[in-house]
């Protein structure tokens, strides 16, 4: 059977790095891919759903409940004999670390590629962790692509390597690859590959500790063989002259900056630049020989010193450990340029950093989370607000988010505040979490809180979608990643099943109902101290397909006495104070007609403007 229908090979397209990775997945004959959304990785699964449709490619795709489950589903498929992929952002790998480390020992059958996107900067994440380091910790080989085109090719190499050595293989693109676009040549998709049906063997697939020791030995052997036999583990000259007494060793997206800088400056163009495609496990001998043959070697990689640490003798090496490369922050072209200039002894002018007044992000005008935060702030002025990960982290702008740790932590931390020894200051806690994050990691924390009798209010902001990352389905939605129908999980039943006794569901646009529901919850948890109460504020994200925003706009009338309540407490980006004219104004391009500001205004100055059709 050939599945290449309306796609001719050797097509060139302007692809985003994440699209190129997705293309690599289907050019590798992958039969199953799973993911949990997270910037900068989300577009990989989205592109897979598009290629699947466009090419009628027979691949099973799912947005899983969290990264751990996503990993396990992909691993199961690999044992079943199929090539499979699992996609996440780097903090997702923390969640999936348990199966990830264990799978390295057990090994794989069908090629398994673990795609983990890193975010040096960080631009949209809690940490700057380097997943290559995690790969090393797990003893899993890792590819580090420099560009979208290379990401496609490395995805294919990763599948081959995985199947050849029976190990999971990581592909670690950085944000600058994920969200770069480039003209990329594509080949046709490959029919899904299978290595034959699963053979039962408990000493391997259900190994007890005794056999794990054996498996660990096997894994060490695999890693050694990869480092010795695979050319991708050796430094490869990408520019400059071999003969120079200096060398730069680099890897991944930062290598693209290095290359552009060296090539465009005649004072630097002689310096040889070596790239390592697979920075773990490196070929120690080849790498050390290179370093030994030079007077100085500079190692530039993001974000941790993975290649650098694998060098046995670092006396002639400059990098993060020696302090020549900054220990944190993205290695932008300007930073890299400085480092290379210093290293090569080329004079440079002092650079003045521009003053940047970046506009702060804000919940969309009309976002259903905004009224919820407004009301929480209004009714719980004395409380501590534990927040979570999603658009609603932006509740900080409304003063209704005090903490943000990791996925699901709002609930666990709320319990901690509630159970803490010093009750005097911490005895009123309100946790906020979104629907997708609740499913991801909030459910066990809620069960734990109910079970231990923690007293706090949980506001579950249900917009029926994973909004921050572009509107992916959650377990409560009735469709799967590729649009096929799904069994929606009933959130209320789930919450009641966790043992929650006080549960209210409200439309956050409804001022009175929202006020009432939160007051009831406050009474239950903060006054009567009867345990966790849950308020679900339910309304679709205004950017989602199922959004039903009223087709109406609002304006500020003459009654406005410039008290600034709407601007200060509601923080809707559509409302602003116009300095010159000293008036409060609603931007009709931005207003999405939620109407909540009407009830917020103490002077009743806000009213509907006109119906837009």
């Amino acid at each position, binding site marked *: 059977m050939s599945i290449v229908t309306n796609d001719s090979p050797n097509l060139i397209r302007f692809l985003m790095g994440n699209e190129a990775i997705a293309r690599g997945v289907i050019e590798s004959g992958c039969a199953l891919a799973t993911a949990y959304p997270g910037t900068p990785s989300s577009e990989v699964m989205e592109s897979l759903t598009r290629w699947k449709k466009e090419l009628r490619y027979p691949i099973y795709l799912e947005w899983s409940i969290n990264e751990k489950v996503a990993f396990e589903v992909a691993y199961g498929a690999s044992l079943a004999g199929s090539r499979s992929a699992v996609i996440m952002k780097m903090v997702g790998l923390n969640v999936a670390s348990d199966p990830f480390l264990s799978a390295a020992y057990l090994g794989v059958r069908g090629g398994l590629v673990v795609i983990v996107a890193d975010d040096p900067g960080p631009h*949209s994440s809690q940490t700057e962790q380097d997943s290559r380091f995690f790969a090393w910790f797990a003893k899993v080989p890792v590819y580090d692509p420099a560009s979208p085109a290379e990401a496609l090719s490395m995805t294919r190499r990763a599948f081959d390597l995985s199947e050849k050595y029976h190990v999971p293989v990581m592909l670690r693109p950085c944000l600058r690859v994920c969200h770069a676009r480039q003209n990329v040549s594509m080949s046709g998709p490959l029919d899904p590959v299978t290595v034959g049906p699963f053979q039962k063997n408990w000493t391997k697939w259900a190994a007890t500790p005794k056999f794990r020791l054996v498996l660990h030995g096997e894994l060490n052997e695999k890693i050694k063989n990869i480092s010795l036999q695979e050319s991708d583990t050796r430094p490869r000259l990408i520019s400059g002259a071999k003969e120079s007494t200096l060398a730069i060793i680099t890897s991944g997206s930062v290598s693209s900056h290095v290359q552009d800088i060296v090539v465009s400056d005649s004072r630097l163009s002689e310096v040889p630049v070596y790239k390592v495609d697979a920075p773990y496990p490196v070929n120690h001998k080849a790498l050390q020989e290179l370093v030994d043959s030079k007077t100085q070697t500079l190692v530039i990689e993001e974000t941790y010193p993975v290649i650098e640490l694998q060098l046995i003798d670092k006396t002639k090496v400059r990098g993060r450990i020696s302090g020549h490369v900054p220990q944190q922050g993205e290695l932008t*072209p300007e930073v890299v340029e400085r480092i290379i200039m210093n290293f090569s002894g080329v004079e440079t002018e002092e650079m003045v950093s521009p003053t*940047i007044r970046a506009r702060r992000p804000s919940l969309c005008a009309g976002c259903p989370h905004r009224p919820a935060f407004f009301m929480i702030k209004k009714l719980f002025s004395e409380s501590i607000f534990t927040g979570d990960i999603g658009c609603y982290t932006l509740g900080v702008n409304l003063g209704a988010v005090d903490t943000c740790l990791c996925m699901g932590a709002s609930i666990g931390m709320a319990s901690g505040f509630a159970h803490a020894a010093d009750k005097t200051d911490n005895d009123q806690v309100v946790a906020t979490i979104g629907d997708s994050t609740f499913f991801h990691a909030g459910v066990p924390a809620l069960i734990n809180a109910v079970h231990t009798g923690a007293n706090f209010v949980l506001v579950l902001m249900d917009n029926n979608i994973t909004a921050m990352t572009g509107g992916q389905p959650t377990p409560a939605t009735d469709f799967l990643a590729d649009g096929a129908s799904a069994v929606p999980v009933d959130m209320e039943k789930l919450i009641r099943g966790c043992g929650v006794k006080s549960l209210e569901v409200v439309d956050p646009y409804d001022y009175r109902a929202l006020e009432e529901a939160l007051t009831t919850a406050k009474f239950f948890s903060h006054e009567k101290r009867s345990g966790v109460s849950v308020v679900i504020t339910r309304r679709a994200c205004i950017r989602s397909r199922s959004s039903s925003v009223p087709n109406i706009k609002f304006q500020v009338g003459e009654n406005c006495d410039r008290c600034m309540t709407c601007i200060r407490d509601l923080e809707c980006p559509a409302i602003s104070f116009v300095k010159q004219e000293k008036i409060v104004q609603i931007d009709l391009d931005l207003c999405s007609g939620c109407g909540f500001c009407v009830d917020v205004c103490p002077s009743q100055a806000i009213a509907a403007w006109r119906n837009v059709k």
Partner: protein
Amino acid sequence: MTQMILCGRGGQGIVFLTRLLGDIATQKGLNVISSETHGMAVRGGSVNSHLKIGPFSSPLIRWGQADCLVSLDSSETLNNEHFLKQGGIVFENSSASSESGLYRVDASNMARSIGGIQLENVILLGFSIFLSNFEISLDDIRQQLAEGSRYRTREQNLAALEAGVRVAEALME
């Protein structure tokens, strides 16, 4: 070789412009690489795209290297000016009047009269005629917009482009 920064607020269609130009360059067989903002910042925060046509490896433009800055929001111009090379030019969505090297058009108002605020980005594209040696011609852009799938957006995009071109031509005189 062209290096271009496109900037504005999240939601103004910066990525659309970047993709459009990149798609055209790709179809012309050129090497093109770009970088764009996603994630939290697109909720109304500052966003920018880097677009590089030519033999580049890195998707990012270094400070002082951009030939041109396309700005959909005048306050974002200041945040991105450091990318411009000496003599680099700016196309800005603003109601103020143009200066040498800084070409302005009130794209927001013009877009509203053509069919909606979302067209402001395409109006700015009309200013590409100010770029000498730009690999992409107005006709290339017209052709690409004409391939849009939805009739209404297609017609509106084309009208927005021509409106931008008319302003640019008037400024050139």
